[in-house]
């Protein structure tokens, strides 16, 4: 089944709403809790990144019996050096964002840790596409 969300980049209070809704759907589907946890962590991180860096974007989730695919797409500034961004502790977040407890530079490493397959494509000035795949079998 497919789910679609538009993530508003201006409303910090709603940040995490899409991953919260996906989590609830997965619980109702009876998916094993350890797998739900992986998706929750990876998707929440990706969604927050989209809000913090790219002023929101679109999320498409496709739930199949064998895997769950989450695609997050934004039209933000893009990531100049993906390898650097994947390093633990690397962060470009502003002071205000860090004060809120985000931007510690663990976002991308955590996404990688919890996804079975993580694919990021980005073009500076155009946007970023993050594809998270978590296997169910």
């Amino acid at each position, binding site marked *: 089944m497919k789910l679609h969300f538009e993530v508003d980049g201006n409303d910090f209070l709603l940040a995490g709403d899409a991953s919260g809704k996906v*989590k609830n759907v997965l*619980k109702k589907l*009876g998916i094993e809790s350890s797998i739900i946890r992986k998706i929750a962590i990876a998707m*929440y991180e990706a969604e927050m990144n989209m809000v913090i860096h790219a002023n929101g974007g679109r999320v498409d989730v496709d739930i199949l019996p064998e895997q769950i695919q989450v695609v997050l797409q934004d039209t933000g500034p893009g990531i100049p050096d993906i390898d650097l961004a994947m390093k633990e502790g690397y962060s470009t977040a502003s002071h205000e964002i860090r004060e809120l407890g985000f931007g510690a530079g663990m976002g991308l490493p955590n996404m990688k840790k919890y996804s079975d397959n993580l694919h990021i494509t980005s073009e500076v000035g155009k946007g970023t596409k993050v594809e998270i795949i978590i296997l169910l079998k």
Partner: protein
Amino acid sequence: MYSHSVTLDSSKCRGCTDCIKRCPTEAIRVRDSKAKIINDRCIDCGNCIAVCNNGAKKAVMDSIGMIKAYPYRIALTAPSFYAQFSKGESIENIIAALYTIGFTDVFEVSQAAQIITKHTQEYMKSDREYPVISSACPVIMRLIQRRFPALIHHVLPIMSPMELAARYVKETYARAGIDVSQVGVFFISPCPAKATDIHKPKGFEKSYVDGAFSMQEIYLKVIHTMEGTYLKEKKRVPSPDGILWATRNGGVSNNEIDNHIAVDGIERVIDILEKVEDGTLSKIHYIEALACTGGCLGGALTIENPFVSRHTLKKLVEKERKLLGDKAIQEDTLLEEIPYLYNISVDPKPVFSLDEDLETAIEMMEHIESLYKQLPQIDCGSCGAPTCRCFAEDVVKGCANVEDCIFMLRKRIKELSESMFELTKKILPTTKG
């Protein structure tokens, strides 16, 4: 068979929809003008008792008459019980009144709470899967089993102060050569969940508490006993730190466990647990979570407003500290020796999953999503379900009909009348139009 403490008095229920909206596990539906509790989902939080204006939701607690069956009848008093007496009644007087109403002994749960705090600190010294979530509130345990099964292994596997107190009492009597089947241990409870907890315990096979009475019922008896009679005060040991347990932040202090948060009120607890699930609270080591606002002082069976009782408790703690003075609390080695760890695991209860087969569940979820889109999405409750989404689920599961929604019904009527009107325009072949 015993299933729940929270139940419905259907003669008083008017079928309004106040309670269905406040239930954190969507466990209530209105059918035939009466609220129906879905037992598998109910976590005994007592929200519906607090919100019902007709007194139709009630807690079925044990009856105090049951104590007569035991020659030795021990009352377990929690600090939250003392906090209900806002007119300055002393703990000694309250305990004396409990003897008068038929108990033969009183053990204060605060004594056990101090030991549980110690065990918790010890447990936290080893590396654990953070954050560890306290297990003292039975409602939170039930909530985690149902809504947050991924967090079960974060739960502190240590029994509640009430349970430790009961085990200690029975062990003490046994050591004095008394047959424990003659010893009844009873808890004076601030909430319905504690009653469910002793009849259906978590983490161990059987609870050593034999009955749980409503705090309101015992309070009345104690007040009546105190009036006009002189009671000989009973000797006791002050335990200020144990008494603090009843308030938020009471269980464990920040000095002892670093990175510790205390949260109360079930909605806020749910919010915190969502964050734990999302991995954003991994730097927090310990979470003390209580379902009622104001902790146990806000329980559905308490008498006094929790903000008043909190003040009363604060005064009691000050008094206890003064009484205790410089004296060190005598350590009770037996109390410390009682095994306190869970010996059976806590299992998830996936009551929300649609179907065991994933493909079937996905198919059902697709139906739910498409039906939800057609619904008004105003969560009016007229269908008897708390939200439009929940109603869509009920329909797909076969527990409700689409026409139970008045908006859908009106749409159907409109469609039908339109097609009837169309039919009236048809001309019979034998007549002229």
